[in-house]
């Protein structure tokens, strides 16, 4: 029974997070399933319209079917990426709820980490259901993984990339110690990172130098990169490049997150108490 206490706490906290998300079953389905379905459907309609308006048969190296497959794959993977709304840390800082953790013998980040673990478990489950359902209901349209290794590589990249997003959002939330504009920052960040990740536009539609540059960022390797591996547009072995980029991002983000948090605490007023 030699579980490290921080790990035991993480497991227990994850269990609660799971309890919380499933507490309202209806809400859970609406939020997780419907959202996951809606995005790909809207994307398909939008790009059908784009192709129709252009009268084109090919854009950025993909035909309409290929583009649709790519965009579904991207939306599918995006579901696995840690969401800014998963953390309410900024709110807790403003309202003073965070104080309770400051007198407890634990790190505040452990609870955020529990959210990430819970989110990853839930969303992997949802993505699996969606993948099976999509393949059965939309044969020919739904993106099928070219190989089991490709599926595994995409999943690993997405979950590792998702951890970068957790670090990034935790860092941004900590800015609440100084500023009141955290929500604006979060929305902007979400917007920008989703652009960088190739969610809003396929990278192949962008100018070549920009697309090349984006391939050095963790957002790309969290979503578009895995999608391309999944579809066989990239070799599975590129997973190592992706993991290297993500690894570097984590080594930068992690100490940054710690410093910002520590500095924030030093100027915390504990208001709202």
């Amino acid at each position, binding site marked *: 029974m030699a579980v490290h206490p921080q790990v035991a*706490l993480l497991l*227990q906290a994850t269990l*609660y997070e799971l*309890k919380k998300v499933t507490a309202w079953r209806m809400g859970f389905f609406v939020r997780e399933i419907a959202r996951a379905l809606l995005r790909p459907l809207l994307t398909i309609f939008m790009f059908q319209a784009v192709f129709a308006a252009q009268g084109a048969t090919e854009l950025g190296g993909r035909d309409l079917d290929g583009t649709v497959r790519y965009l579904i794959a991207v939306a599918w993977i995006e579901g696995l990426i840690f969401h800014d709304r998963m953390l309410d840390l900024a709110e807790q800082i403003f309202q003073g709820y965070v104080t*309770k953790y400051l*007198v407890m*013998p634990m790190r505040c980040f452990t609870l955020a980490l529990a959210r990430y673990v819970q989110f990853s478990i839930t969303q992997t489950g949802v993505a699996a259901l969606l993948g099976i359902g999509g393949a059965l209901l939309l044969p020919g349209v739904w993106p099928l993984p070219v190989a089991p290794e490709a599926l595994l590589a995409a999943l690993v990249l997405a979950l590792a990339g998702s951890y970068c997003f957790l670090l990034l959002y935790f860092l941004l939330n900590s800015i609440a110690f100084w500023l009141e504009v955290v929500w604006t920052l979060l929305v902007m960040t979400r917007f920008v990172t989703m652009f960088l990740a190739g969610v809003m536009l396929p990278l192949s539609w962008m100018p070549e130098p920009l697309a090349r540059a984006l391939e050095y960022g963790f957002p790309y390797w969290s979503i578009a990169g895995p999608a391309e591996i999944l579809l066989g547009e990239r070799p599975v072995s590129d997973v190592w490049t992706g993991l290297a980029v993500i690894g570097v991002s984590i080594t930068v983000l992690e100490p940054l997150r710690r410093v910002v948090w520590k500095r924030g605490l*030093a100027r*915390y007023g504990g208001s709202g*108490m």
Partner: protein
Amino acid sequence: MTSRAEHSGKAPVGQPVLRCQGLQKVFQTHRRDPGMRGLLRSFVARETIEVPALRGIDLSIEAGEFVGLIGANGAGKTTLVKVLTGIVPATQGRSELFGEPSFELSDAAKSRLSIVMGQRSQLWWDLAPLDSFLLLREIYRVEKSDFDLRLEQLARRLAVTEQLRIPLRHLSLGQRMRMEILGAFLHRPQLVFLDEPTIGLDLVSREEIRTILSEINREQGATIVLSSHDMEDIENTCRRLLILSEGRLLYDGDLVKLRERLFEKRAIELHLEPHAAEPDPAVLAELCGADVQLLRSSAGALSFAVPAARVQPFLAQVFARLAVRDLAIERTPLDVLVRELFQREGEG
């Protein structure tokens, strides 16, 4: 690694668990005038103001003590608790818990500490209290058998066994506060701060909570610091009293002695008939003898401090002279106490 909460809740009696010296806390905040002009002005040149919440506190509390911390709203009670427990850093001065600087407490020191905030829940709003407690068990690393026993005992004593599985937000204020207290004592802390835990509760609940705290203090030797703006919370529970006023410790000492000296006063608040004439200053002067003081007078309301033994004759006099519609008598009012202490300071 620290021991898995094997400590019994007792620290060696007679050693300071808390010590602070010259403690000061200044909050920075911004002033903004109301309306559009204020908004614009604050945009161009934001005016930073400093609020001194603590102005030099020296304090030492020994293991096993039950200390009452009293002060009017805004006196700095919460700030003192926050600085002592390391939630916020001090601006100046030193503060130590268990021999460690408050703002840099180790996990070992933190697991001997607990705090209950009347204004902010320590438990998780969406969870049933039991779920929160299980999480606390993990955080404080309490052995399962010990935890189960303790939970059962405390829940019974606080009369909340039935509510353990109901989400916190569905409980009444009083039940919630009992849950907070339960959670705070689960890991057998050696030092517990309770910041206005009885705020907003009815008289019976307040009395019960005070009784339970006294029992825990006596039986387990846990050091307790209980803050309140209401003297009644402190009067029958604490042996030692701290009076905080505008960020300074006005009094630190034995409660019984202070009571003998000062407590035998009553605050009498009078509401006059709405259409009666303003009370004649001569009448007021006559009512205020050597031992009766006029504390406040506003349109239609007067407030006096009267020695307990003189209440009856005073009231007879009042009814003879003034058109009284309503009156209230309050025991040991805080503002009377603070005023008296200030006066003594001035004299001595």
